[in-house]
């Protein structure tokens, strides 16, 4: 079994899995490192370039991990969305309840 699952069915992608948690953990670090790294890089500080570099690499890893799953979640859900929307429009009206 691969460390990172890259092929998903819509059914499998509905569950929260380690791929989600990898994205959840990496994402804040990505923002912090890019923000601070870029700001420090503008002043040509070596630490800034290091932080920015790490930020870009982990951002790439994050999207590599989460994108296949998001595609599967989306394609599976969009098929049901129409029915859900119709139902939602019905319950939207206060007097019909």
């Amino acid at each position, binding site marked *: 079994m691969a460390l990172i699952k890259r092929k998903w069915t819509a059914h499998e992608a509905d569950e929260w899995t380690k791929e*989600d948690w990898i994205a959840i953990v990496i994402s804040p670090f990505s*923002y912090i490192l890019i*923000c601070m790294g*870029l700001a420090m890089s503008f002043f*040509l500080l070596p630490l800034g370039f290091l932080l920015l570099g790490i930020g870009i690499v982990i951002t790439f890893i994050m999207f590599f991990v989460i994108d296949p799953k998001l595609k599967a*979640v989306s394609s599976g859900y*969009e098929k049901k969305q129409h029915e859900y929307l119709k139902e*939602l429009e019905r319950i939207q*009206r206060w007097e019909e309840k």
Partner: protein
Amino acid sequence: MVHFAPLDYFWTIAYLILMIGAGTIFYRLGKRSESDFFLAGRGLPWWLPAISNFATHTATDTPMWFSGLVYQKGLYGMWYSLFAGWCAISAWVSTRIFRRSLAGTQAEWQTQRFSGLGAELLRGWLAGWQVALSMFIAGWVGIAMGNVCHYAFGWPLWYGLVIFSTLCTIYVIAAGYWGVIIADVQQGITMLIVIILVSIWAAIAAGGPSHIVASLKQMGQNEMLNPFRMTGFMSGDYPALWMITMIVVPFLGGFGMATHFDWFVEAQRIQSARSIRDASYSIWWGTATVIVRNAIWGIAILALYVMTSGKLSAKEAQLGWFIVGFKFFPVGMVGFFFAAILAIHISSIAGILNLGSMYATRDLYHHYINPKATEKKVVWVGRVMTVVVLLGSFFFGMMIGDNIIDWLFFALWLMIAGTWLPNILQVIWWRFNSWGYLSAWIANLGICWLVVWVLPAFGIIPDLPDYQQFWLLIILVAAVYIPITFLTKPDDMDRLVKLYVQTRPIGFWGPVKREAERRGLLQAIDEIDRKAEQMA
């Protein structure tokens, strides 16, 4: 005072026509339906709401408080701007859940997440709250424009507040969210280009990056380049607990919904995206651009610090970025800079007016007052409500005056402190019910004013630092909603099961999941998925 050459007038007038025209031209799309007027038909590719996200969150007040903080604290001040970090986790968690719910607004989500009278009260409460908050934010952003025009042209504050917000209302009324999105795209691109140009100009004027670093060292302000400085856990000007608060609160807030008031704006963009993936990417990349923007601003402000030897007063420093643009841009480009300020201003105001109107129309008028209203009538009410929110913003704008930063921290952090945890619990914990959530909102509203303003004024509690006020509010409000949650019944299982099957929330939903399995609902959904995959 800023002097305008004829070319500067040309830039300003041409850009105003372009902005209003680009928005208004989508009049026909905006009037097609309620969904078009408020959600652009729910079919946008991710990059459109992403640019809109960036444009809306780059408001006239943003460079003001950002300049004030970075001028005072150096790169350390950038931590304040990371409140936008809630999108880091939200993009992969609450955005996905909310997009699957298909709720048009956060208020509408309440009647999907909760049940019975409590849910309806919450929907009404959140809708009313959001209408008022939209007025407040539009007023706050509007008066920031008033301050900029006062600095640049010597106008009375209310000129800048009223003139430009009124002009952008034209395309919001005409084309609704379609107009907002389309105008945001050209406004977002324009403002990013100008932000980069101003920083380049400022860095050159200050002698380049190396000279700025050397000057800061000479001035004994080397630490201004260190965003990670600390003076102890809770002591000194840079306590570790402050930084921990600034990291933990926004980022973990991404597990919930409405943990930051920007969520309400994002919720509209999430539902306007054409798929879950598009919604997630729009949130992540829109905020990533905000974060890059902050880094670009940083060099302009520190360049100004060096050029002014750090001698600007706090109020002057708030106008730092504007001073750089007006002073260092060449003649003929000053008008282009002012056009970019207009883009910054109008994109935020337009988005907020449409948002406030959506809550007033969709959640108050259409849900409670006239559920049988035709699409045409709803769109018209939407237009009227846009004007109502605009007028309310004038009142709040004049109330705030030139006190932008003082209001910022209160509005951004403390007014939502007590509801921060409940906003997460509503997503991750099935047992958190409508009465617990409603009590949290009401208790927070009272307690935040007491802790921040009233009790310190009477000397009953000391005037605490903002991050300590935040944690204190979390504890005090929790003392209200946790007992209420356990003393009242859970929400109706039918409603919870329906929500679970549709949105698949993260966290502690065990009993609801088991009930959905017992009813065969998850298996039925999975069967639909399998059949669809086989057919594909």
